[in-house]
C-alpha cells in the first residue's frame, strides 16, 4: 500500500519543504532586522528540516524510477523497464522536472551545510544568510510545484512500459556530469547570500569575505569539474571528437565560471587588503545571477528552439520572473547599500593589487564577450533585425587573445607583492623564466610539428610563462629551509592551492593548443583485413559483427592497432547502435586514451560492399584539457583546507608542531 503511495508521499514532502522554506525565508530575516534572537534562531532548524523533506521527495522520485512506476508521467516519459538500474537512478535528473528537483535538493543541501558549519559566525549574519538562501529555495520549490511537478500521475492509459531514456543520456556522463555542474551553479548561492547579508547588515568588512571564501572555492571547484566532465562526455559521446562547441548551453556554464574565477580573486583582495569591497559584492551577485540566467536560457527555450515545442511556455516565464525578482532585488539592495565612499587603499603599478585588478577586468571582459555572443542572436531577433548565428569563430577570435593577455599578467601574479614592489627586483626574479618560456615556446612547434606555427608558440609561451615564474617563486620561498621538501611542506595550503590552480590553467592551455593544432583526422573506407595508417599507427580491421545489448542492437567492428613495426598491438571496438525503444541510432566511439595522445575511432555507415566508412582520429594532449581542470579544482579545494579557515570553523589546530606565520602569499 505504502509503495503505491510513494509519488504522493514525495509530493507531500515537497509541499512541507516549501512551507519550511517560507518560514526560513521570513522569520530569521525579520529577526535580524528587529534584533530578536529567538526569531533569528529559526534559520538553522528550518534549513535542516527543509533539506530533509526535499531529500525525502527526491528519494521518492528515485524509488518510482527504480520500481518502474509508469503511472508517474515523468517515469513513463524518461525510463524503461529494460534500462539498467544505474541509468534508472540517473534518469531522475535526465529530464526537466527531475533535474530541477535535484537542483533544489542541492540548494537545500548547501543551505543545510551553511547551517551546520557556521556555528562561530555572528547570530544575525547566520540568520540573514539562511534567510536569503531560504528565499531562493522557496522560489525553486514553488517553481517545481507550480509548473514542473515530477510526481504527476498518468490517470488514463498507463503505459505498459516507458518511452526510454534518450540514448545519448544512457551513459556514465549523465551519472556524474549534471550533479557536479549543479553543485557548482547552486553552490554560488552561498557566497551570494553572504554578500547580500553583508549589505543588509551594513557590515561590508573583510569578515564576510573570509567566511564566504571557502564556500566560493568549493562551488567553483565543483563547477570546474562539472564543466570538464561535460566537455569530456561530449568528446566521447557525440562521435566527432569535439570537446567544446561554444553552444549556448555550454556558455551558460562557462559564464558563472568566469565570473566565479574573478570572484575568487577579488575576495582575496578584499579579505587581505580591504579594497574592492563593492566590486566583490557585485561579483558575488553577478556570479549567482549568471547561474540562474543559465537555467533560464537552457530551460525556457529562448535559445534552444527545438526544446520549445516540448516545453511549457509558462515555465520559461516562471523562471524569468524568479530570475528578475532575485537579481533585480539584489542589485537594488546593492545600489542602495554599497558603501558610498570608496576607500583608497593605496597600491602602485607593480603590485599584486594592480595585477588582480587587471585579472578581474580581463575576466569580466571575457564574461561579457561570452554573454554577448550567446544572447546576441536573441537580441537581434527580439528587435526584429533578423536571425544570425554566433559560433566558434567569433568566440575563438576574441577569447584567444584575451586569454593570452591574461597569461602575461598571470605569470607576474604569484611572484608579486601587495601594495608595491620594485621593478628591478621583479625583473631580476623573472627574466630567466621569460627567456626560457620564449625560447621553448618558439622552438616547440618546430620540434613537435616540424614547422613553425604562431598559435602553438603563443600557447606554449603562455603556459610556460605561468609555470616557470611560479616554480622560481617556490624555489625562492624554500631556499632558506633546511631541505627542499621540508621547505615545500612549510608553504601554506592556500599557497599550494594557488599553485595548483594556476598550474591547471597552464596544463589546459597546453592541451587546447596542441589538440587544436595537431589533431589528425581521416575518414577512411575499411573492409575486414584492410590496414590504414594514421599518425604512425596501423589500423587493421579484423572483424565485423553484430550484437544485442540490453536495450539496443549494434553493428560492431574490431580493429587491431599497432604503432610502427614493433609496437605493442591492441584492439579497438567501435560500435554503431540502434536503440530499440526510441529507434535512435548512436555512434559508440572506440577510444584508446593516453596522457600524450588519444586514438579515436568512430564507425560511420555501411558502404554496402562489406566495407564501412570509419573516422579515425589522432588527438594529441587532449587529456590535458581535463587534467588541467582537475588540477584547478583540487587547487580550489586545497585552499579551503588552509588553517585560517579551520581556525574559523572553531576547531583546534590539527598539528601544533607545524606553526606558521600567517602567509602573505596565501591568496589568489
Amino acid at each position: 500500500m505504502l509503495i503505491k503511495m510513494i509519488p504522493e508521499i514525495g509530493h507531500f514532502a515537497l509541499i512541507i519543504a516549501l512551507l519550511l522554506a517560507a518560514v526560513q525565508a521570513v522569520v530569521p530575516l525579520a529577526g535580524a532586522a528587529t534584533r530578536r534572537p529567538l526569531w533569528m534562531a529559526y534559520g538553522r532548524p528550518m534549513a535542516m528540516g527543509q533539506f530533509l523533506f526535499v531529500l525525502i521527495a527526491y528519494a521518492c522520485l528515485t524509488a518510482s524510477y527504480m520500481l518502474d512506476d509508469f503511472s508517474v508521467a515523468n517515469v513513463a516519459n524518461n525510463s524503461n523497464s529494460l534500462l539498467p538500474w544505474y541509468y534508472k537512478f540517473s534518469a531522475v535528473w535526465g529530464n526537466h522536472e527531475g533535474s530541477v528537483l535535484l537542483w533544489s535538493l542541492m540548494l537545500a543541501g548547501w543551505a543545510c551545510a551553511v547551517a551546520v558549519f557556521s556555528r562561530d559566525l555572528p547570530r544575525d549574519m547566520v540568520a540573514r544568510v539562511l534567510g536569503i538562501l531560504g528565499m531562493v529555495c522557496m522560489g525553486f520549490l514553488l517553481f517545481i510545484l507550480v509548473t514542473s511537478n515530477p510526481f504527476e500521475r498518468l490517470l488514463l492509459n498507463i503505459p505498459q512500459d516507458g518511452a526510454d531514456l534518450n540514448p545519448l543520456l544512457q551513459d556514465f556522463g549523465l551519472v556524474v556530469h549534471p550533479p557536479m555542474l549543479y553543485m557548482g551553479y547552486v553552490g554560488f548561492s552561498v557566497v551570494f547570500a553572504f554578500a547580500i547579508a553583508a549589505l543588509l547588515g551594513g557590515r561590508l568588512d573583510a569578515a564576510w569575505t573570509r567566511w564566504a571564501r571557502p564556500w566560493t572555492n568549493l562551488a567553483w571547484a565543483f563547477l570546474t569539474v562539472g564543466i570538464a566532465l561535460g566537455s569530456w562526455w561530449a568528446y566521447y559521446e557525440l562521435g566527432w571528437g569535439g570537446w567544446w562547441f561554444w553552444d549556448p548551453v555550454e556558455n551558460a556554464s562557462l559564464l558563472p565560471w568566469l565570473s566565479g574565477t574573478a570572484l575568487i580573486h577579488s575576495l582575496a583582495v578584499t579579505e587581505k587588503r580591504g579594497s574592492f569591497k563593492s566590486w566583490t559584492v557585485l561579483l558575488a551577485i553577478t556570479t549567482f545571477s549568471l547561474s540562474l540566467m543559465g537555467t533560464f536560457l537552457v530551460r525556457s527555450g529562448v535559445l534552444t528552439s527545438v526544446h520549445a515545442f516540448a516545453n511549457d511556455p509558462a515555465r520559461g516565464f516562471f523562471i524569468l520572473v524568479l530570475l528578475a525578482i532575485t537579481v533585480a532585488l539584489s542589485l537594488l539592495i546593492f545600489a542602495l547599500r554599497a558603501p558610498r565612499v570608496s576607500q583608497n587603499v593605496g597600491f602602485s603599478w607593480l603590485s599584486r593589487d594592480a595585477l588582480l585588478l587587471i585579472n578581474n577586468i580581463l575576466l569580466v571582459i571575457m564574461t561579457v564577450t561570452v554573454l554577448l555572443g550567446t544572447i546576441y542572436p536573441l537580441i537581434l531577433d527580439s528587435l526584429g533585425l533578423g536571425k544570425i548565428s554566433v559560433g566558434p569563430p567569433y568566440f575563438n577570435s576574441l577569447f584567444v587573445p584575451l586569454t593570452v593577455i591574461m597569461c602575461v599578467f598571470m605569470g607576474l601574479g604569484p611572484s608579486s607583492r601587495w601594495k608595491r614592489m620594485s621593478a628591478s627586483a621583479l625583473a631580476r626574479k623573472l627574466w630567466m623564466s621569460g627567456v626560457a618560456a620564449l625560447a621553448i615556446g618558439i622552438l616547440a612547434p618546430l620540434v613537435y610539428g616540424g614547422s613553425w606555427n604562431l598559435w602553438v608558440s603563443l600557447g606554449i609561451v603562455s603556459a610556460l610563462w605561468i609555470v616557470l615564474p611560479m616554480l622560481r617563486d617556490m624555489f625562492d620561498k624554500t631556499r632558506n629551509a633546511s631541505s627542499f621538501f621540508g621547505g615545500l611542506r612549510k608553504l601554506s595550503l592556500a599557497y599550494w592551492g594557488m599553485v595548483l590552480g594556476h598550474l591547471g590553467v597552464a596544463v589546459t592551455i597546453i592541451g587546447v593548443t596542441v589538440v587544436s593544432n595537431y589533431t589528425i583526422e581521416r575518414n577512411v573506407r575499411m573492409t575486414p583485413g584492410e590496414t590504414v595508417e594514421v599518425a604512425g599507427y596501423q589500423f587493421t580491421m579484423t572483424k565485423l559483427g553484430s550484437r544485442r545489448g540490453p536495450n539496443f542492437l549494434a553493428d560492431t567492428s574490431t580493429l587491431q592497432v599497432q604503432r610502427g613495426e614493433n609496437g605493442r598491438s591492441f584492439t579497438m571496438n567501435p560500435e554503431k547502435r540502434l536503440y530499440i525503444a526510441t529507434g535512435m541510432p548512436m555512434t559508440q566511439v572506440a577510444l584508446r586514451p593516453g596522457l600524450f595522445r588519444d586514438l579515436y575511432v568512430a564507425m560511420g555507415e555501411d558502404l554496402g560492399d562489406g566495407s564501412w566508412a570509419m573516422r579515425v582520429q589522432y588527438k594529441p594532449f587532449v587529456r590535458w584539457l581535463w587534467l588541467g581542470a582537475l588540477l584547478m579544482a583540487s587547487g580550489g579545494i586545497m585552499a579551503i583546507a588552509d588553517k585560517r579557515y579551520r581556525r574559523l570553523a572553531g576547531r583546534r589546530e590539527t598539528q601544533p608542531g607545524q606553526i606558521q606565520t600567517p602567509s602573505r602569499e596565501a591568496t589568489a
Partner: protein
Amino acid sequence: MAMIRPFLGLATALAMALMLLGNSSVAMAAGIEIREFDDPVMEQRYRDLTGSMRCPLCENQAIDDSDAPISADMRQRVYVLLQDGRADIEIVDHMVQRFGEYILYNPRLENRTYLLWGTPIALTLAGLLLVVLMVRSRRNAAARALSPEERARLNDLINRKRPK
C-alpha cells in the same frame, strides 16, 4: 521530452528536429564521407569552411559535425566548389544566397553586428583606461599615508563614520 542534457542539447535536438520535420527515416545517417583532396591546403580550407557554417536544420551544429542530410549536401557543394577553384568568399556567398546569413557562425561585420564585434574591443580599451585611472589615484594614496599606525587610525575613523 528530456530537457537537461547539459552539453548534449545539440545532437539530441538534431534528432528531435528531424522528427519534427518528419525526416526521421533518414536521421543520423552518419556524416562520415571519404573525400580526396589534391593538396593539404585545400583540405584545410574545406575543414575551415564546413566548420564555420551552421547546419540550417539542426539545433546548433556546424555542417561538418552534423548528420543531417542537408549538411551532407552542403558539404558536397563546398567540396565541388573548392574543386572548381572558387575562392572561400565566393563559396560563402553561394551558401548565404540560398540559406541566409543564419548559416554563418562568424557573423559578417554590418550595421546590426557592430555592437557584437565592437563591445569586447571597446571594453578592453575601457578596461585599460580604468586600470590607468585607478592605479594613478591609488598610487597617490599609497604615497601619502604609509605608516601602519596611521593606516590603522584611518581605517578606524572610516569605519566609525559609516552607518551601522
